[in-house]
């Protein structure tokens, strides 16, 4: 049995978690795999300001920091922001994959330039920051939004007819005006649009969530994991303190 922890970056209820779990249907996974979707204890409810980004780092870090001790073989972070990834890598020796950097790198196996399709305008600064920090400015054709306020629980459910064609039109501008050879869905919350876009666009479409599951499979198969000298362990871990902090945060939200 291989157990994969998928950290969902919002404190969602059961229904919201189910919408995230649906991502695993897009790819065949080994028979003996168990994907465990775990929401964060507490965290932001929007994702468009440094306030949100910082809280989400902490929230995802806390949700996954005991994954190795809990018997998980790998961790996937269900957000293109890669929030919490580097912190988790500093305390875990199992593979930890965020959807953001990995999907941009994977896009470059499929073409020379990628564009990121973002949900709405307030999301754009975060992508631009990440792309600059990863050093992918030269490989990124553009980041464009289809101007739809995000719903982190229902995702795109019920809005397909209205939103999917708009996503396609914006992606076509990325391709025709900006020179994108590959489209990266800007969020794992867009997974429901992946098949539609793949069928209606002339370039490959990377659906980041399912990709992370397959990448984990590769890393486990090849015995690869992040180098710990890049992500060194803390001199004095304070994970118990972290749990106490986030539990208090959750209580404050009730």
């Amino acid at each position, binding site marked *: 049995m291989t157990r994969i922890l998928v950290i969902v970056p919002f404190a969602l209820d059961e229904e919201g978690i189910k919408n995230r779990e649906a991502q695993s249907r*897009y*790819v*065949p996974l*080994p028979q003996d795999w168990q994907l465990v979707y775990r929401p964060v204890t507490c965290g932001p409810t929007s994702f468009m300001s440094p306030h949100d980004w910082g809280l989400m780092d902490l929230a995802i870090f806390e949700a996954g920091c005991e994954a190795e001790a809990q018997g998980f073989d790998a961790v996937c972070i269900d957000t293109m922001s890669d929030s919490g990834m580097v912190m988790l890598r500093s305390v875990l020796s199992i593979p930890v*994959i965020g959807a953001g*950097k*990995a999907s941009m*790198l*994977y896009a*470059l*196996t*499929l*073409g*020379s*330039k990628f564009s990121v399709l973002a949900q709405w305008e307030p999301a754009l600064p975060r992508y631009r920051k990440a792309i600059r920090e990863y*050093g992918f400015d*030269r*490989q990124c054709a553009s980041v464009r939004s289809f101007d739809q306020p995000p719903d982190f629980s229902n995702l795109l459910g019920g809005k397909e007819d209205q939103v999917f064609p708009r996503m396609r039109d914006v992606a076509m501008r990325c*391709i025709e005006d900006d020179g*994108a*050879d*590959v489209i990266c869905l800007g969020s794992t919350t867009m997974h429901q649009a992946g098949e539609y876009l*793949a069928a209606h666009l*002339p*370039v*490959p479409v*990377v*659906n980041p969530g*399912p*990709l992370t599951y*397959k*990448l984990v*499979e*590769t*890393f486990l*198969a*090849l*015995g*690869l*994991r*992040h*180098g*710990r*000298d*890049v992500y060194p362990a803390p001199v004095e871990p304070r994970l118990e303190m972290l749990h106490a902090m986030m539990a208090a945060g959750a209580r404050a939200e009730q």
Partner: protein
Amino acid sequence: MKKVMVIVPFAMGEDDLARRKTQLDAVDLGPGLEFHFKPVRVGPKNYSSQHDMALADFSILDAGLDAEKDGFDAICIDTMSDSGMAMLRSVLTIPVIAPGRHSMLLAQMLGEKFSILMMWDRWKMLYTKTLGELGMEHKCASMRSIGITPDNKTLLSGKEDEVFPLLLAAAKTCVEQDGAQVLILGSTTMHEAHAWLSARIGVPVINPGPLTYQLASIALDLNLTHSKRTWPAPLAPKHDMIRAIGAAGAAFLEGRS
């Protein structure tokens, strides 16, 4: 059952081919994928100069040209030079996975900077080309060679005692002096050193051949293939001419042997 063609970049007999095939032992891809190793029929003696690289590109194009028509679902190219990848991607719609580009991108999922370990300095041009195409020169901490002439048929067998410690010493320099956080074996012909080196160096080491098999599996599972905007199809494909050139080259080599 899906079929993957692994193009081996040198013409060789069964014994030598078997040493290439042992790369498959590094991964378990389950019963759904079948790998067929196919050596090229023409090409250079080794990869030592731009002269060789031109022949290598052609030889791999020639070997894979009909793969899609012949029922293959994907191609892996068994050389870090990525020879023939661009040409094959322009004429095929099935995934064509080459280890150079892919291992440099995968390395960045494991750390920020990578170094490439090579047998001899003559391989440097291979990686420089791919880094340039990717626009990622700044991600490569170093390329270090152990100054041993490679043998693309017998690989490292019989030379373990000589070669493995040299690789470890070079790897340590990459990590300690150059700042590499991930290492990439500079050739699929170095796969026999992977397990030994990985156990001793303390940073992830990418074994490029088996990586391509995994990535072929990912591409097939996700139904993804390369973008035709990066590798556009020719307006006037010359498949017959390519086959004729390949056959003539093979006949020339045959007549010489």
